[in-house]
């Protein structure tokens, strides 16, 4: 079953994707699979082990299933402060 997601990109992921957000229709069973799909499409160099994932503005787990209509964000290593 495929789901429609809004994907948001920040920092170097946004530069690599060339957009700040996009709509994705995916059959990936979990968020790890969603990232793998987008990594292949955009050539992201950051491995999943260096990222965190958030859904609808809260941290989520890579094994969570993507929810229809949700906003998914991949969080590169942070560098505030």
């Amino acid at each position, binding site marked *: 079953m495929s789901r429609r997601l809004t994907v948001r990109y920040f920092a170097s992921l946004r530069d690599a994707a060339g957009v700040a957000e996009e709509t994705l229709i995916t059959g990936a069973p979990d968020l790890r699979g969603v990232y793998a799909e987008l990594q292949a499409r955009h050539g992201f160099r950051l491995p999943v082990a*260096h990222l965190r994932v958030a859904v609808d*503005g809260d941290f989520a787990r890579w094994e969570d299933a993507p929810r229809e209509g949700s906003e998914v964000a991949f969080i590169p290593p942070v560098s505030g*402060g």
Partner: protein
Amino acid sequence: MPRFALSDVPFDPAPLRSALLDERAGAFAAFEGWVRNHNDGRAVNGLRYEAYVALAEKEGERILAEACERFAIHDARCVHRIGELATGDLAVWVGVSAGHRDAAFAACRWIIDEVKSRVPIWKHERYVAGDAGWLHPTPTTD
């Protein structure tokens, strides 16, 4: 009032400090991060901070609430700049009021460490040499 805030314009730390004044408190510790004119051996012109605003605000608020639980403090605040910054600009401010200085220092240090490692904010540095780049420090295991 939230304890954590993002600011897309320069801000003055004085009113943030004033908001923490408390007659029960004997100690106040503050930390500020300033934009240095160099980093890792390279001359820096300025930088841009970008945030995932909704999540940064939530995570910042969680860090300050946790600090109030973990340490014997009265209150704490943090403001982090986003947007374009020049060298010398104030990038982040943390302030903690407490009965005694041990807790004030420990909580202030803990908050800035957690903010740096957990809050989704990214630094894009512009170098005097003309290039620029995102800082994505490789995560270390805890």
